[in-house]
């Protein structure tokens, strides 16, 4: 028989950090909605587990000084139903609602999703479009990662080091912004074939901010820089949005997939960008 897993259930973040530094090979456990699969496939070995679920300080959701604070242990369901998130960043609750199903949303967490860095996940394009920051800690140090520049490093690879625990995500929010989120999946709420998050802002009818992030088609989510720049200073007419969507389709890299052609997914990048931009434009007050 294989030896039994050593299982720790710390009550505080300090305890968890100490445990991780004493057991560098330990696996952190949040919702288990991805780890469950990894362990069944034999991809991770569960010699030592540090279960974060009792650290209630990690589950806070709040709004302070123009910034939304989401604790790493906030579940998808917390985020979907939180009045604070719905008020300040409905884009994030919209994305949460499109994750899998109620059972998985009750268990899965935003911290686990960020650490897992699944290229088809639904929060990453939102976090990159909003320019969110991921915060983590080890016993001795605190770290901050810009999702836009440095957090999602590669296919299922985030920037956090082996001794770090993700503690929270902070997101600057603007009350003048309009948001769009589109997801294409085989069946409603399945994993994304393509998903797109967009943010627009205008002053006196002119576009002053545009953010477009596309995921599901490459190893990491990608920012559509040229498409974004093309919108600045325009009046966001249908033509402007169409042109930006075509540019997004041009510039977003699409990798091979055994099931769906590159051409189709690339075309869908254009279609979904346009839809999400239209929603964001309609959402501007």
């Amino acid at each position, binding site marked *: 028989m294989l030896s039994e897993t050593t299982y720790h259930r710390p009550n505080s973040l300090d305890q968890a950090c100490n445990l991780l530094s004493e057991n560098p090979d330990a696996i952190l456990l949040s919702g288990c909605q991805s780890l469950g699969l990894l362990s069944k496939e034999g991809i991770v070995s569960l010699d030592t587990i540090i*279960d974060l*679920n009792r650290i209630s300080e990690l589950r806070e959701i709040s709004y302070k000084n123009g910034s939304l604070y989401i604790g790493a242990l906030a579940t998808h369901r917390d985020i979907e139903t939180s009045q604070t998130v719905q008020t300040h960043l409905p884009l994030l609750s919209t994305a949460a609602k499109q994750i899998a199903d109620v*059972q998985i949303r009750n268990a899965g967490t935003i911290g686990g999703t960020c650490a897992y860095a699944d290229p088809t996940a639904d929060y990453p394009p939102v976090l990159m479009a909003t320019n969110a920051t991921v915060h983590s800690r080890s016993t001795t140090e605190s770290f901050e990662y810009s999702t836009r520049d440095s957090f999602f490093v590669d296919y299922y690879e985030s920037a956090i080091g082996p001794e770090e625990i993700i503690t929270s995500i902070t997101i600057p929010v603007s009350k003048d912004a309009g948001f769009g989120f589109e997801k294409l999946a085989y069946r409603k*709420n399945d994993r994304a074939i393509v998903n797109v998050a967009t943010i627009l802002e205008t002053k006196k009818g002119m576009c002053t901010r545009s953010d477009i992030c596309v995921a599901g088609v490459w190893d990491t989510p990608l920012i559509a820089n040229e498409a974004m720049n093309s919108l600045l200073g325009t009046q966001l007419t249908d033509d402007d949005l169409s042109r930006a969507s075509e540019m997004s389709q041009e510039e977003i890299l699409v990798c091979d997939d055994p099931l769906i052609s590159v051409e189709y997914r690339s075309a869908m990048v254009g279609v979904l960008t346009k839809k999400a931009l239209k929603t964001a434009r309609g959402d501007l007050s």
Partner: protein
Amino acid sequence: MILNFKVNDTTHETNIDPSMPLADVLHDVLGYKSVKQSCSTGICGACTIRINGEARKSCLHMAGQAADSNISTVEGLSKNGSMSPLQEAFIDNFSFQCGFCTPGFLMSAAALLDENSAPSEEEIRDSLHGNICRCTGYLSIIDGVKDAAKRITEGGN
């Protein structure tokens, strides 16, 4: 590791590997045979149980994660030997054929109805989205949940 599981208000002390899937603990170790597994990968919902009232997929929880929480399974739905209105509504609406998926649907529906005793059809569909049935075609299950909501509201139960 010694772990305590509180299932339908009965506490069980076990000595098991804390990384064992909760579905195996409930079915194989503790004998709650209503807890079915089909995919064991979070897709089918057959293993749905409730943890502290919330519908969860027990194949994707580790034993250690669920220990000391309040777990409920179909075995806890009946009271004093009589079935709950939800179970009766499932029977009367032909909400199952082979029945393998039924415990999962019942626990998802029970979680919904405890939170919202007058759900819309959309809310019912949303709460059952994570449960797969290969027999009924779903419509009779949705009818069963609607009927259960009516019985619960009317019966004041």
